[in-house]
């Protein structure tokens, strides 16, 4: 026969165990997983768990980590309630880690989750989040290359009229008639800038024409590498036109590497040498208007072109002709009629078609609540 | 006459510009200035801080853009020193901001008799913008172990009770570039640091989205913002002077454009 006291004891134990089991169930972080963080260099592990129900009284989470067979240690600070992920970026290569997520309640009691399966940080060779970027890049490259080869096969390619480029010959002609020089400014850009390369190609075309007329062509440079390449470009143009003696290396020189000192120097050249034509082609910053206004004040024909969109308003206000943004790149194709430039110009137009298509399709999809395109274009680091 | 007016010598325009800038400098006057809401918000926020709290100013402008941002730094610091609020100066974007920050801090401190190390401190510049912002969120001393003149941070009295952003009531970013975005992304989003900005006129319009979402608690825009703040603390200074002069130059340019167009139309009608 069981005594009353024993009954009481059993009941108590049952109640206690049920209540602790109940509280464990509700408060212990569930579904805790630790995985190697995808698309990283292998220096972190991501721990995730399910959000606790609202009335469990959890005030925060503490992550505990065990390296291989070592001891459990607390890592990081106490995470606020409502957190469901933690990225452990203080791991060492090759070690194996297991984690426990400890929930802390308002009464400062703690409940631990189960230990996760062991995990190791590994670096990935390809960032899957950048797949779209990679494919678009390949597609665009293929389009450009295909169009260039198409153009090289002798197919006629149309280029629309670019106002300002017709003025190039007029400007050079005027300088020759007046017996004055031509000033060519390539802007502040280094050799890696697209605008600088486009500008050098245009300069090559201008130099071909000045070689024939023997008009002095003055090129002050701000970048030493550009200086060296420009000398080669102009020299080649003169040789190609059969006037190697007319080439004077001293007309292409280094002025200084500092923006406003450069502007001061070029301004000085303008007012003293009074060139009849000034070309301002390349990438520019605040000095754009200093140059363009001074050029205007001496009455030179000015043809500007830049992809620095902030400086375009000033060129438009102060110069006779301005190539806007991509027009500067297109000018190389227009002037040289080189199939390489013509073809890639056409490829770029296909790129624009693609962009326009994406915008129109994207807007239509977004309005109907589908966000494929915006997800595809998501910024990935 | 109109033909002459149309092809006026540019030097006459230069003289007008010079006069419009010099005259107000010699005979100061003041145009009415309404305090805009973003400025008022910043003022109210700082005004409500208890004495003894600390704000941080990030000086992120260079020698080519200080005329607009420096008066803001002066006005806000005057307000802080009057209220007993301490100021920490840092620079995360330009190395040449440090001498500029030093100069304005010393000026205001001399005027308000604030003591270096107790009422204000200039920590200087550290490279790696986002890492500096993130690093200070964990521990300021991990990024700045010393101030700009190499005094150890442990020897600076006012830094004793400050470990990270938890003790900073506000970050004011005086910017001429894109540093505000960095402070919002890394300072506000990650550490819940309260951020306000004071920016040059050219980049003001980029700030409005952050103001709308509340990521910025206040905004000073160019000379105008500085002038408005000076009005609120009742201490007209370079900002007020600047906005008055700048207003005149703007009006001059608009006037010139109008005159030029009148001359142009009259001329064209005569030709027809």
């Amino acid at each position: 026969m069981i005594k009353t006291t024993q009954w009481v004891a059993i009941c108590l134990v049952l109640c206690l165990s049920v209540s602790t089991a109940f509280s464990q169930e509700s408060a212990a972080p569930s579904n805790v997983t630790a995985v190697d963080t995808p698309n990283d260099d292998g220096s972190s592990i991501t721990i995730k768990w399910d959000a606790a129900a609202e009335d469990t009284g959890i005030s925060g989470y503490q992550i505990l980590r065990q390296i291989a067979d070592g001891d459990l240690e607390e890592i990081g600070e106490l995470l606020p309630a409502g957190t469901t992920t933690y990225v452990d970026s203080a791991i060492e290569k090759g070690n194996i880690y297991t984690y426990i997520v400890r929930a802390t309640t308002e009464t400062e009691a703690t409940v631990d989750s189960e230990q996760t399966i062991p995990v190791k940080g590994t670096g990935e060779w390809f960032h899957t989040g950048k797949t779209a970027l990679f494919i678009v890049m390949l597609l665009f490259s293929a389009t450009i290359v295909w169009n260039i080869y198409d153009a090289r096969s002798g197919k006629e390619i149309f280029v629309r009229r670019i106002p300002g480029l017709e003025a190039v010959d007029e400007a050079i002609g005027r300088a020759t008639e007046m017996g004055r020089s031509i000033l060519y400014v390539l802007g502040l850009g280094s050799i890696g800038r697209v605008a600088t390369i486009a500008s050098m190609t245009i300069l090559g075309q201008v130099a071909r024409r000045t070689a024939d007329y023997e008009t002095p062509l003055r090129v002050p440079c701000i970048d030493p590498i550009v200086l060296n390449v420009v000398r080669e470009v102009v020299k080649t143009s003169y040789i190609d036109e059969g006037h190697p003696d007319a080439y004077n290396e001293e007309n292409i020189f280094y002025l200084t590497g500092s923006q406003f000192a450069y502007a001061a120097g070029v301004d000085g050249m303008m007012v003293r040498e009074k060139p009849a034509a000034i070309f301002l082609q390349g990438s520019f910053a605040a000095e754009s208007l200093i140059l363009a206004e001074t050029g205007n004040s001496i009455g030179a024909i000015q043809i500007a072109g830049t992809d620095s969109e902030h400086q375009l308003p000033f060129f438009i206000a102060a110069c006779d002709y301005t190539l806007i943004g991509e027009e500067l790149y297109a000018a190389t194709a227009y002037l040289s009629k080189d199939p390489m430039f013509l073809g890639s110009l056409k490829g770029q137009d296909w790129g624009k078609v693609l962009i326009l298509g994406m915008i129109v399709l994207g807007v239509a999809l977004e309005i109907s609540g589908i966000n494929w395109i915006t997800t595809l274009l998501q910024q990935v680091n | 006459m109109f033909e002459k007016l149309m092809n006026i010598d540019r030097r006459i325009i230069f003289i007008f510009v010079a006069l419009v800038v010099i005259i107000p400098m010699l005979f100061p006057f003041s145009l009415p200035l309404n305090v805009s809401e973003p400025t008022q918000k910043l003022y109210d926020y700082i005004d409500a801080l208890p004495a003894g709290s600390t704000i941080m100013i990030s000086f992120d402008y260079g020698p080519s853009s200080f005329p607009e941002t420096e008066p803001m730094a002066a006005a806000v610091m005057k307000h802080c020193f009057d209220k007993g609020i301490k100021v920490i100066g840092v620079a995360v974007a330009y190395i040449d901001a440090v001498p500029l920050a030093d100069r304005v801090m010393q000026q205001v401190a001399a005027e308000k008799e604030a003591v270096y190390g107790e009422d204000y401190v200039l920590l200087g510049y550290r490279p790696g913008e986002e890492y500096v912002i993130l690093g200070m969120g964990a521990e300021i001393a991990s990024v700045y172990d010393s101030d700009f003149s190499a005094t150890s941070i442990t020897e600076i009295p006012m830094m004793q009770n400050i470990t990270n952003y938890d003790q900073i009531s506000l970050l004011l970013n005086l910017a001429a570039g894109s540093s505000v975005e960095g402070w919002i992304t890394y300072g506000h989003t990650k550490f819940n640091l309260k951020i306000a900005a004071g920016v040059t006129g050219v980049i003001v319009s980029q700030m409005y989205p952050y103001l709308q979402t509340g990521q910025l608690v206040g905004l000073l825009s160019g000379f105008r913002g500085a002038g408005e703040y000076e009005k609120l603390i009742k201490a007209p200074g370079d900002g007020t002077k600047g906005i008055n002069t700048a207003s005149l130059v703007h009006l001059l340019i608009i006037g010139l454009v109008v005159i030029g167009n009148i001359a142009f139309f009259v001329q064209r009608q005569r030709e027809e």
Partner: protein
Amino acid sequence: MKQKVPLVLCFLFGIVMILTEFSPHAASQATYKEIANWGRVISPFVFVLAVVTLIQTHWNRIQRRTEHWQYSFVVFAGMLAMVAAGVPSGPQHPAFAWLFNNVQVPMDATMFSLLAFFIASAAYRAFRARTFEATLLLVTAVIVMLGNVPVGDLLWPDAASNARQWILDNPNLSARRGIILGVSLGAISQSIRIILGIERSYLGGGD
């Protein structure tokens, strides 16, 4: 040797930089950082060449007594002063800082401030309502200018600064987007041409 090898090198380095961009692995990232740093190592060497050309240019001017040749001495004097003050004990030296703050910075800042004059004269000359496009240009410029100063709000209560903000956020932003999209397509296509060795103008022509 003169043309092929450089083009092959250009291709190899270009491809490596593209691939590392898509690869988060520690080895790729280390490669990326190392190579991206090279430009900084190289630039001092290139600069030596630039200084040599500068000295040659001005030396020739002095020797040939070209017009204003005397000023070339000023160039040398300025350069030597900075080098003498800065090279032996570094840019922290007070003499270097003094020269920088009292001579170079004021001149630099003054050059920059010339823009205030030029912006006025350019506006006067160019903002004429000759065509529809020119009218748009001038009207938006005037509205934005009015919106930037408190006088605008006095003349046109509340509307001036709102109108300015709207113009900057809407038509201005979409125009800039259009330009940026076009420009970056051009930039990418040029980079592709360079890596593939189709564009060679930067080699300066010749064989």
